[in-house]
């Protein structure tokens, strides 16, 4: 996993076969390559063996409470915006075994942990997702008791970022300062140029490991015109987003723990927790303890949890947040306001997933704007 930007590096031009060589080179290095493919009518980030597994000629249509795959005629491999589930699923899996223990004469003994899994290479990480990974690295790492699993998986990972060639229907990364241009946090950055009779991937390195990998691909240097086109392309994307998050959001929410809008949004919110499951930075978990039938082998598993459940805040006597308004307020205020105090940034990267995957299409930017407007 790379650090900050290095000096300006060479930009190479890969064709589809070159992209295949990149995937093969990662696999030769022992990485489990994870990238986009299609399953259940959606783009999912899973194992890919070659460029043939990528979602060729598919785009996505996203709106509040709506997601559809759409065929596109340029054959683009990264023609969608973001998959429903981000890379969190791989860096902080939905179910993780914390430990296993065995009953013994003296009480119980802890069983040795399982060896770490193969390092992962992520292919197709968007700018907002690079930002989300950096945010979760602070959440899990920057404290007295860091999570060792997250740190190890991220340190071992190889990141191939792919810059967006179009804005998604619910995107607002430009106003969060987290995209669409990818400016760090990658080993290799790709820009896909599709249509107009050519199909290229401009590749540049962001770390020594990336430089090393690209050197092996035997690719020509990119033409200056193509490099300029890549820059123009991302500038167009930045200006094409239909939503913005107000700059003073953190303060607005911090000052409005009580506001009629909480009652209003609670009338629509189903407290289903979808937004927290698709959010690339939501990190809350619960634990589940179990034993075998003989009561001799016990395990403890950590599972993704959501602040939208009543149980989430349960203490003896009852839950703290019983009402929907309290739980929605907790989620959005944490994400956009108290996150700054806790981790030094917003917890939102503007990926738009919470809007797309909300069954009733609640729009995080619209909720903030409503509270913002009432201040004036």
């Amino acid at each position: 996993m790379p650090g900050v930007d290095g000096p300006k590096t060479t930009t190479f031009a890969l064709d589809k076969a070159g992209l295949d060589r990149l995937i093969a080179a990662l696999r030769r290095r022992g990485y489990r390559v994870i990238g986009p493919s299609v399953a259940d009518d959606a783009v999912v980030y899973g194992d890919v063996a070659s460029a043939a597994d990528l979602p060729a000629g598919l785009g996505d249509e996203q709106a509040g409470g709506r997601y559809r795959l759409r065929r596109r005629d340029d054959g683009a491999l990264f023609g969608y915006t973001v998959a429903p589930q981000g890379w969190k699923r791989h860096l902080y899996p939905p179910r993780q075994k914390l430990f296993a223990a065995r009953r013994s004469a003296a009480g119980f003994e802890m069983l040795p942990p399982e060896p770490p899994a193969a390092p992962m290479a992520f292919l197709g990480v968007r700018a907002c997702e690079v930002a989300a990974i950096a945010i979760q690295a602070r959440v899990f790492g920057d404290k007295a008791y860091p999570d060792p699993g997250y740190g190890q998986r991220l340190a071992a990972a190889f990141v191939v970022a792919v810059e967006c060639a179009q804005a998604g229907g619910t995107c607002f990364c430009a106003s969060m300062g987290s995209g669409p241009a990818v400016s760090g946090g990658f080993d290799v950055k790709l820009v896909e140029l599709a249509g107009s009779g050519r199909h290229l991937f401009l590749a540049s390195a962001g770390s020594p490991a990336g430089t090393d990998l690209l050197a092996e691909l035997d690719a020509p240097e990119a033409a200056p015109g193509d490099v300029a086109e890549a820059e123009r392309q991302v500038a167009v994307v930045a200006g094409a987003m239909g939503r913005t998050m107000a700059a003073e959001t953190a303060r607005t929410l911090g000052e409005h723990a009580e506001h009629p809008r909480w009652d209003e949004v609670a009338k629509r919110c189903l407290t289903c927790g979808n937004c927290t499951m698709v959010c690339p930075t939501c990190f809350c978990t619960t634990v589940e303890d179990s034993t075998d039938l003989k009561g001799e082998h016990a395990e403890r598993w950590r599972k993704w949890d959501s602040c939208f459940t009543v149980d989430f805040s349960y203490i003896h006597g009852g839950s703290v947040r019983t009402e929907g308004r309290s739980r929605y307020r907790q989620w959005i205020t944490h994400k956009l306001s108290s996150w700054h105090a806790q981790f030094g940034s917003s917890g939102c990267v503007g990926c738009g997933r919470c809007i797309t995957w909300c069954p009733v299409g609640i729009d995080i930017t619209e909720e903030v704007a409503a509270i913002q407007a009432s201040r004036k």
Partner: protein
Amino acid sequence: MTAPIPDPMLPRPFRIEKVRRDLSDTFTMELVPAEGGEFTFAAGQFNMLYVFGVGEVPISISGDPGDRSVLVHTTRAVGAVTKALDALKAGEVVGVRGPYGTPWPVEAAFGHDLVFVAGGVGLAPLRPAIYQAMANRERFGRVVVFYGARTPEDILFKRELERWRGRFDMSVHVTVDRATGKWSGNVGVVTNLVAKGGFDPSATMAFVCGPEVMMRYSAAALEKRGVARPSIYMSMERNMKCGCGLCGHCQWGPHFVCKDGPVFRYDRIADLLSIREL
């Protein structure tokens, strides 16, 4: 490369040395590390206690921070894990993760009158601070304990309270919500005791622990008496799954109660306490 990070989610086995029943639903356990060694903590901190195969609960430490040979926990059996804990006997093993959280600032209170306000089982997290204060008795002005229980049968650490009351360098006032049997002591809420004073409010540090509503009213009573907000501390309770800032459950405004608390300075949380369902 750096050394591997120790996994904060792995419990350490501790053997139960002794179990004492305090009240019908409350018990105190003395634990020692199964593999030997000592346990160091600061008054006000808590541990995550694991019952094999059942689960984990955050429980404050109720023993003497000056005694590293034994770890003492006082627990009220109200849920699945605490009831399973209650069923364990001396010789059996529990898992321990910790100590976690912020301590009572006992040393910062040197030179002041020290007032403890406890409600119900809230006396347990305060007891380590009382031990520490009495071990440094000459460093304080007056030391006062105000304690409220539901009934005389619910008075926790009763013999110890009586012993403390017998000392000439400490005052102990107990009240019950409802008198039963031959009770002839105070009846009413613990804030009534605070209102009577017996300490110099301009030079007092107060540590408050009990149900949240009791702590709110106690802080108000202390303030009314003249104790400044920054001199009042209270210990908060929230749902916790990890105890060390990873699971997100205990969030309260910008705070993680597990690592930014449980002991908070009142002036830093007074606003949050007034927001319903935060």
